[in-house]
C-alpha cells in the first residue's frame, strides 16, 4: 500500500533549498488617539454599509428602536453573557419584539434559527480601526451562528477595544500564546456579493444589515 504522505514529503525533501530566516515582519500599527481610532473605525465600516451608533447603558433601547424600524419580531441572544443579562434587564417590550435566548445546540433549533429568527445580538472582542472590522471570538456562551444566520446582526463594542490594525490586534492580545478559539472571525459589514455584473447586493447569505452599538464611556480615557 502506498503512503501518499511519505511520498509527498520525500519528493519535497529531494530538493534542498537553503534554509531561510523568517522574513522580517514588523508589526504594522498606527499611533492614533482613541478618538481617532473610533472615527476611523466608523468611517471604514460605513464605507461597507455597516451602521455605527454611539450608546451608553441605554443600548438595549437603541437596539430596540433599530429593530422596530426594521419590522423585526424577535431577537436571538446569548443569555449567559453579561450582555445577555443587561439586555434582559433593560428590554422595553417583550411583546413587540420577543427575546429568544439561544441555549440549544444547532441540531435542535435549526428550523427556529434558520426560518424564524429576525435578528441576532453578539458582543465582540474588539475592532480594527483601519478596516472597520469587528473581531469576534465565538464561545460556548455565544455560538458562531448567532452572527451569521439572522438577517439582522447587532454587535456591542467597547470603544476602548478598538486597535489600529489586525496585525497589532493579534500580536498585542497574544493570540498564539493564548490559543485560538474554534472559529475566530473578522466581520466587516453585512454579507454581500458582486457576482452579478460586479454590482453589490447585500444579504446574500449572511445578515443584510449590521449595526454596531459602541459604548464609549467605558474607556476612551484609558485607551490601549
Amino acid at each position, binding site marked *: 500500500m502506498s503512503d501518499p504522505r511519505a511520498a509527498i514529503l520525500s519528493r519535497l525533501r529531494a530538493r534542498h533549498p537553503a534554509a531561510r530566516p*523568517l522574513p522580517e515582519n514588523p508589526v504594522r500599527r498606527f499611533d492614533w488617539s482613541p478618538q481617532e481610532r473610533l472615527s476611523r473605525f466608523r468611517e471604514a465600516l460605513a464605507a461597507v454599509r455597516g451602521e455605527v451608533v454611539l450608546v451608553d447603558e441605554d443600548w438595549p433601547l437603541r437596539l430596540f428602536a433599530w429593530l422596530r424600524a426594521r419590522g423585526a419580531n424577535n431577537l436571538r441572544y446569548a443569555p449567559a453573557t453579561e450582555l445577555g443579562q443587561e439586555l434582559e434587564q433593560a428590554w422595553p417590550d417583550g411583546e413587540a419584539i420577543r427575546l429568544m435566548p439561544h441555549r440549544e445546540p444547532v441540531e435542535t433549533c435549526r428550523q427556529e434559527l434558520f426560518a424564524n429568527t429576525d435578528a441576532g445580538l453578539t458582543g465582540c472582542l474588539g475592532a480594527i480601526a483601519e*478596516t472597520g472590522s469587528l473581531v469576534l471570538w465565538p*464561545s460556548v456562551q455565544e*455560538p458562531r451562528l448567532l452572527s451569521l444566520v439572522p438577517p439582522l446582526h447587532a454587535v456591542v463594542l467597547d470603544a476602548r477595544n478598538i486597535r489600529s490594525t489586525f496585525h497589532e490586534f493579534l500580536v498585542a492580545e497574544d*493570540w498564539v500564546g493564548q490559543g485560538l478559539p474554534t472559529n475566530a*472571525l473578522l466581520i*466587516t459589514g453585512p454579507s454581500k456579493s458582486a*457576482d452579478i*455584473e460586479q454590482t453589490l447586493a447585500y444579504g446574500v447569505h449572511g445578515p443584510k444589515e449590521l449595526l454596531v452599538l459602541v459604548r464609549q464611556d467605558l474607556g476612551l480615557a484609558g485607551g490601549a
Partner: protein
Amino acid sequence: MIPEFPVRVSQALGNERVRRNIRRTMDGLVLKRHKAFPDEHELAVLRRRGKLIRGHALAHLPDLLEELERNCQRNGIQVHWAETAAEGNALVRDILRRHGADLVIKGKSMVSEEMGLNHYLEAQGIRAVETDLGEFILQLGDERPSHIIAPAIHKDRVEIAQRFAAHFPEYPYTEDIEGLTAIARRIMREHFGRAIAGLSGVNFAVAETGTLCLVENEGNGRLCTTAPQVHIAVCGIEKVIARLDQLPPLLTLLTRSATGQPITTYVNMISGPRREGELDGPREVHLVLLDNGRSRIHGDPQLSSTLRCIRCGACMNHCPVYSRLGGHAYGTVYPGPIGGVLEPQLQGLDRLGELADASSLCGACGEVCPVRIPLPALLRRLRAEGVRGRQGSRVVGQGSRRKPLHRLIWTLWRWVNAYPSLYRGLTGLGTRLRWLMPKHLGPWTRTRSAPALAPRSLHELARSEGFRGE
C-alpha cells in the same frame, strides 16, 4: 471533447456578449485595485514582504506541512494526504459515505475544481451544491468558472434572470440584481438548514497554530464550515504559511489585489471542530492536503516561484489577452497568466504548452502580482522548454512542441547565416523575385497588408555606399 485552443480562441473572440461582460468587469477590477493601493511605496514594501513570506514557506515546505499536521491534529482536525486528484476525490467520498451524506454544500474552492470533485461525486450518487452566488449560477447551467475570483463574470443579469426563470418558475421573473440575489438566498437556505456535510477551500493554512483561514464576502463559506456536522477543507500543499502574524500582510495583499477591498466581509479562522459544550460548529473537521503535481514544481528552483501564488486573480484582470478572451477559451481551471504558467506544469507541455503562448509578454502580470511571481520569465521558459527541453528540468512534455518543419527551418537558418556568400545570394534572389511574393499570408493579412520587400536589401545599399564588412 474540448476543442483545440485556437478553435476556442476564435469562438471566444466571436462572442460579443461575453467579451463585453468580461471587459466591463476587468476594467472595473483594474480600477478598484489601483485605488486600493494609493501609496506606491507601501505597495512595494508589501509585495516584497508577501514574496518573502511565501518564499520562506516554500523553502521550508515539508517541515511546515508536518508542523501544520501536528497542530491541526492537536486541535482535533483530521489530516489526510492525496498525491493525485483521484486520491483526493476518493478521500472526500469516503468521509461523506461514512456519514451517510448524499448532499454536500460547497463554498468556493478552486482546488475542488482542479479535482473535478463535483462530477466525481455526482457519479457516486452524492450531490454537490455550490453556494457561492457566482458558482451557483454556473452550476445551474453546468458551466465552469471563467475567472478564479469572479466565476460568473461572463454572464450578464439578463442571462442570469432567464436561467433562474427556467429553473425556479415558482419565483416571479426579475432582472433586478437584489431580487435575483434574494431568490438565490431563499433557495440555498433550504440546503443550509439540511445538509450534513460542507466543503470549502483554504486561503492560508497556518502551521504554527493549525488554523485554516478563509476569506469571503457572502457568508456561504462560513455557513458551509459551521452549519453541517462535518466540514471538509481541500487545500493545495503550497497554501501553508509559518506564522499567524504573517496573515495580516498576506490578507491585505490578497483582498486589495483581487477586488480592491481593504478586507473582505468575513475572515474566517478555523482551528478545530466543535469543542465540549459548544452549541454549533461541525463535529468533525477534515483537511485534505492535495499534491497533484505541486511537489514536482517545488523541485525546480525557478519554477517553484509559481507556488507562491495566492490566487488573487490580478494577473488575469490586467492581462490584455485574458480580458479579450475570457477564461473559458483557456479550457483549464486556472486561466490567464497564472494559468499559462501553472497548467502546463500540472498537465504537461505536450497537452497544454500552447497556453504559455497566450501572452503578448507585455509584463503587466508580473508587475501587479502581489507576491512578485516573475510570470513573463516563467512563460518564456515554458515556451522554450516546449520546443527544446532543458537539462535537469522535470517539466512533463519537454520538447514535445517541436515540429519537423520547425527543425528544418532552423537548420536552414543556421546554414544561411553561417555562410556570407549563401546569405548574400539568397537575399539577392529574394529581392529580385519579390514580385512572386503572395498578397495574402494566412491570418496575418486578414487585417493587415502584406509586407513589401524592398528592391535592394540593406546590405546591398550599404555596400554601394562604400561600406565593407562592417
